């Protein structure tokens, strides 16, 4: 094993979304930051969004599912015991390369679900505590938000840019929402409406989920890592971590990683895990030792447990007017929090966030015109062209994102057989939607059909349920009690005083909001805590 590398003040495992935020903050504060990233840098010109074959590539080489993509930088995921897939991207910038850009704060009630609704757990922090960090990361990522959203407390600081146009599609369904008296608001996106720092103005290609070839979307390879590197941070790519090491007192002191088939050791005083809700528990479980026989930081037994995913549903409406339904960003046009909160008369607890998104292109329309009908005979042949003629450029889609409550029967484990290309155990996912989630989605989908019809749709139908969201949440729970949580309120593991976690695995509950804003706010808060308490921080030997 190569042990020649110099000691890092902070080792960040994962150069993605949350790792970028932590890396920039810590490097700017003067720490020597080293990041180990399993993927590599992606050149925007290699992204498919401005090529004619973009949808073909988006379904394979740029698929959000690593099992479909099969890149040398991905690890395989056994999802045979799950009713969803784990979407992610391995690269500097991580899954932010393929995120839709929806920049949504959680709501105050999300942090208090046990107190308010008697389910799951309260977070050990409040919305008010996290709010300044939402403000800070909105400035860093380049958020575009119309201030004054009535779904949030009034004291939210303005985002650096005002919102994108809601386009014809957003206006059409907003009129329906107004007729029904329901809440809606122009979409909130981490996508630049003008030149902003290293970001260019959005060109509205509508292909955000295949990477932004225009550098207009907030991704940490553009917005964070270049700044961190100017302050001395090192990003080591193609570096797959096999385990975090500990000293004789049980403090983290570095990580072993494999690069091009060769083992290296990166020593560090503090270790920060930012490898997402699958990768982070996988590394902790692989870091088993005689001192930590159940995996690192796992005295609670909760590492990998309580996996949540936002298995969203979709509905569409067909409208007479041409709507330019392909026009970006993609990204949301409008959103609604009308049915976000619990109303027990509906037969479930908690609720959903809604948003409309553009259609990407004609290949993506096929699944929408097919709807929930699996019979190919009803789609192809004489009906195919008719349905495409009726639908393309005339469709609006509602995305119904449900809160997904935590259950210990949904979890990430190490697969006993499946290995990655370096021989490391692949993760195995055990996940099934709960009855509460199903009811919640069903109820909201029916309301979304009512909205389409109120907006003037000539037809409306449910297109899908249980979609993979790429939101991988909850597998290293945050809490005050070491017996019932993995990390404390600042993201520090209860068991290892110099090991922190900054990705969405720390969420106490899933919320029903897209996770990026909350993930980055938490990462910023943890990095701020690390800087502030550096003097008293225990370090590895």
């Amino acid at each position, binding site marked *: 094993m190569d042990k020649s590398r110099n000691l890092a003040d902070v080792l960040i495992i994962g150069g993605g979304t949350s790792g970028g935020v932590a890396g920039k903050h810590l490097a700017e504060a003067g720490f020597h930051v080293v990041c180990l990233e399993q993927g590599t840098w992606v050149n925007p010109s290699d992204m498919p969004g401005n090529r004619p074959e973009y949808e073909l590539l988006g*379904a394979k080489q740029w698929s959000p599912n690593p099992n479909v993509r099969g890149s040398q930088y991905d690890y395989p995921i056994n999802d045979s015991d799950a009713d969803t897939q784990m979407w992610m991207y391995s690269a500097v910038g991580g899954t932010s390369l393929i995120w839709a850009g929806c920049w949504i704060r959680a709501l105050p009630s999300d942090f208090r679900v046990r107190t*308010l609704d008697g389910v799951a757990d309260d977070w050990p922090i409040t919305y008010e505590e996290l709010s300044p960090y939402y403000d800070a990361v909105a400035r860093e990522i380049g958020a575009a938000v*119309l201030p004054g959203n*009535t779904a949030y407390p009034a004291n939210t600081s303005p985002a650096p840019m005002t919102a994108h146009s809601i386009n014809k599609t957003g206006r059409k369904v907003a009129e329906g929402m107004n007729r029904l008296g329901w809440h809606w*608001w*122009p979409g909130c996106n981490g996508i630049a409406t003008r030149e902003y720092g290293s970001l260019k103005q959005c060109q509205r290609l509508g292909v955000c989920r295949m990477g932004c070839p225009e550098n207009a979307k907030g991704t940490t390879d553009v917005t964070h890592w270049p700044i961190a590197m100017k302050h001395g941070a090192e990003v080591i790519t193609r570096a797959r971590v096999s385990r975090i090491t500990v000293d004789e007192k049980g403090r983290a002191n570095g990580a072993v990683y494999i690069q091009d088939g060769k083992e290296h050791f990166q020593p560090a005083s503090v270790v920060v895990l930012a490898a997402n809700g699958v990768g982070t528990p996988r590394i902790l479980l692989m870091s088993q030792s005689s001192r930590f026989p159940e995996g690192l930081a796992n005295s609670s037994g909760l590492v990998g447990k309580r996996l949540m995913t936002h298995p969203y549903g979709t509905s569409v409406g067909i409208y007479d007017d041409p709507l330019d339904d392909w026009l*970006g960003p993609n990204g949301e046009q409008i959103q609604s929090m009308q049915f976000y909160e619990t109303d027990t008369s509906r037969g479930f607890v908690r609720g959903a966030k809604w948003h409309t998104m553009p259609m990407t292109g004609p290949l993506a329309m096929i699944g929408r015109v097919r709807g929930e009908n699996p019979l190919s005979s009803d789609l192809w042949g004489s009906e195919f062209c008719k349905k495409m003629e009726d639908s393309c450029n005339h469709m609006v889609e509602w995305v119904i994102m449900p809160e997904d409550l935590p259950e210990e029967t949904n979890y990430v484990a190490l697969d006993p057989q499946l290995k990655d290309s370096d021989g490391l155990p692949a993760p195995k996912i055990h996940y099934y939607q709960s009855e509460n989630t199903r009811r919640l989605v069903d109820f909201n989908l029916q309301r979304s059909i009512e909205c389409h019809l109120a907006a003037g749709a000539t037809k409306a139908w449910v297109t899908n349920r249980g979609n993979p969201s790429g939101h991988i949440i909850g597998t290293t729970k945050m809490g005050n009690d070491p017996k019932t949580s993995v990390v404390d309120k600042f993201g520090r593991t209860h068991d290892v005083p110099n090991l922190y976690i900054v990705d969405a695995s720390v969420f106490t509950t899933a919320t029903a909001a897209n996770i990026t804003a909350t993930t980055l706010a938490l990462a910023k808060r943890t990095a701020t805590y690390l800087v502030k308490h550096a003097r008293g921080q225990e370090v590895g030997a």
Partner: protein
Amino acid sequence: MTGIVSGGPASEGNEAVPESLLGIAERKRLARLADALIPGGRFLPSASDARVHLRWIDHTLAARPDLYPVVSRVVATPGEASDVLARLVNESPAVFEDFAFAVAGAYFLNPKIRKLLGYPGTKPAKNPAYSDEAEHYLSEDLLAPVLKRGPIYRPTPPET
């Protein structure tokens, strides 16, 4: 045959038939299979009229070489096109889905099809917003009913 895309049936096309991936007979076979999936509509042409079996399947397979084994397998399956596809649906649905995806992918690569469906250009087009566009789509006080109802968030008790 709706024939809005310029040119006649596949066999009368002006393009040279490339043989790099599929031979002439295979392309003719593909045309029949593709037409069974996409026979044309009110204004959309059939798959063969859109040259799916010529330039566009080559373009598709160049981008997605992983689809070639499925396309060549289905093309080589004997029988009436509609019968072959019906059997695949029942017996090998994953193969059918991949084949239909390749055919549809080739169809939608044709810029004329994209244009007929209302898509601007051969690929996602740059379309930056005008400076007043966001305001325009919120005109006539579109947000007024939302603002009039006031805050809807649920108050939370102090931390316990």
